[in-house]
């Protein structure tokens, strides 16, 4: 396996995960708002949003270790007109900056929700352009193993797979942590079971009560009994709504990861066949991928199958049935397995390098 390109492995995996998380979180947001309102959605998704920044920054820092002469690093965006590497660095930095601005705006609740959404949409778009640029960096005519449609397809699959599962794990961890710290003992289970009964018709009223409750709680600083009762009731409803949102998001994430797994499992054999029937360099790359029986490749495939496929299936089922306690273990271990698999896959990608000519 290729250990010389570890900085690039770290950069590409972390950047793709960040973009994927941002996009998936955006989708969760859009779907969530319609059903559960801004309050529940922000409550659940904000901590996950703040976690994307450090991941992206870590990736950018890792990329600096790839450079022999980082002193000149700023020159790397000099050649936007012709070098995909320049474009990659440019869009990488742009995504990080726009993401940071959005995180601050969202945290301080600046601007209107619509303007925040537009900013988030633009950031997501820049992120997707970043992933595209990243894949184009490797579309070198001199490297047949990389100059293949499988490169962009795989990069985008990694982006959405890691993004989805990272968001799934983050949401469920945030939710579980909140329940342990804020909910009084005993009411946790009540909220969870109640959530099972929340239907679309009811959630419409939840947002209304919630805003009323917030106003009520500001007025009720004196500790009037009636107001407190309203707050408690509204809190329960927000909690139930958050729970319903969490579980519908997890179902969506689990379903998406199973579909993406399917794409990976179709792309890989097609790609391997192309390499095996390609020119001498492509065949050399195929041989590298399959070295020693392809044990490393097989490990990667088993890991992603277990994470995205098997755990994805159980995650979907648990989220649908409301097995609250399983969710946190399922979501985090699915993410860990897939993260390991995609990292190994990326190392194999760099190992498969074999250049035409001398």
């Amino acid at each position, binding site marked *: 396996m290729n250990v010389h390109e570890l900085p690039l492995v770290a950069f590409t995996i972390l950047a793709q995960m960040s973009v994927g998380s941002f996009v998936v979180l955006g989708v969760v947001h859009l779907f969530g708002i319609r059903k559960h309102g801004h309050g529940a959605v922000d409550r659940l998704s904000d901590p996950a949003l703040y976690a994307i920044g450090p991941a992206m920054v870590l990736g950018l820092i890792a990329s600096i270790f790839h450079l*022999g*002469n980082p002193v000149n690093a700023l020159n790397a965006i000099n050649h936007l007109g012709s070098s995909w590497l320049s474009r990659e660095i440019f869009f990488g930095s742009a995504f990080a900056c726009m993401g940071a601005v959005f995180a601050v705006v969202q945290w301080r609740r600046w601007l209107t929700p619509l303007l925040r959404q537009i900013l988030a949409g633009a950031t997501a778009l820049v992120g997707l352009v970043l992933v595209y640029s990243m894949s184009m960096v490797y579309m070198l005519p*001199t490297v047949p193993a990389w100059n293949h449609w499988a490169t962009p397809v795989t990069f985008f699959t990694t982006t959405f797979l890691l993004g989805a599962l990272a968001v799934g794990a983050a949401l469920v961890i945030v939710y579980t942590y909140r329940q342990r710290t804020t909910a009084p003992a005993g009411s946790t289970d009540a909220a969870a079971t109640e959530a099972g009964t929340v239907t679309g018709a009811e959630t419409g009223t939840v947002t209304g009560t919630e805003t009323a409750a917030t106003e009520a709680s500001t007025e009720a600083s004196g500790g009037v009994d009636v107001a407190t009762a309203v707050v408690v009731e509204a809190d329960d409803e927000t909690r139930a709504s958050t729970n319903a949102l969490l579980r519908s998001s997890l179902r969506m994430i689990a379903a998406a990861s199973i579909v993406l797994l399917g794409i990976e499992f179709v792309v890989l054999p097609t790609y391997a066949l192309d390499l095996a029937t390609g020119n001498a360099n492509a065949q050399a790359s195929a041989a590298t991928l399959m070295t020693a029986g392809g044990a490393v490749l097989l490990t990667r495939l088993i890991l992603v199958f277990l994470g995205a496929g098997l755990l994805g299936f159980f995650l979907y089922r648990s989220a649908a049935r409301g097995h609250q306690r399983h969710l946190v273990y399922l979501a985090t271990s699915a993410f860990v397995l897939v993260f390991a698999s995609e990292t190994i896959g990326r190392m194999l990608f760099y190992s498969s390098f074999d250049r035409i000519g*001398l």
Partner: protein
Amino acid sequence: MAKQLGFYFDQTLCTGCKACQVACKDKNDLPVGVTWRRVAEYSGGTWRQDGDTFTPNVFTYYTSISCNHCDDPQCVKVCPTTAMHKDEHGIVTIDDGKCVGCRYCEWACPYGAPQYDKDAGVMTKCDLCIDRVNAGEQPACVAACPSRALEFGEIDELRAKYGDTAAIEPLPDPAMTRPNLVITPHRDAQPTGHGTGAIGNPEEI
């Protein structure tokens, strides 16, 4: 812009002595692991049947190669910093004051011309001995060749004199970068893409 410069290489004369490679290394004080001009040994063979007897039919020929200062240099195209550029003589040159040492040009060039100096952290490459050329001398590699297999000059003149062949194994298809290189092929030379042999000295190039 001055006339584009390039190299001519006569495969029929090369003995694979590597005097060009050593002269280049010496003139440019290249560190271990950096070799701007290299000599590739390409060999292969088959069996020939004479009645009931099979006799080996083998070949080996040498190709001395450096940067070809291509018309469509992939290294220049992909370089993120514009450190890699084509100067007024058509010489592909690296400005180490701009280079970040990302080694992307190394992936992109099919001739292995840009090479990484790990102590300096930047890429290095053949500059066609522009200092010697400006002083009216030949590049070190050309001057050193005992067989006179190497020449350099304006590529139009070289092509008028020697034809326009550069598609010889183990070199890549010239359509990729349009190298300013002319080769007189060895009698056993195989065209690019139809090679049956292999590079005999991969660790040397």
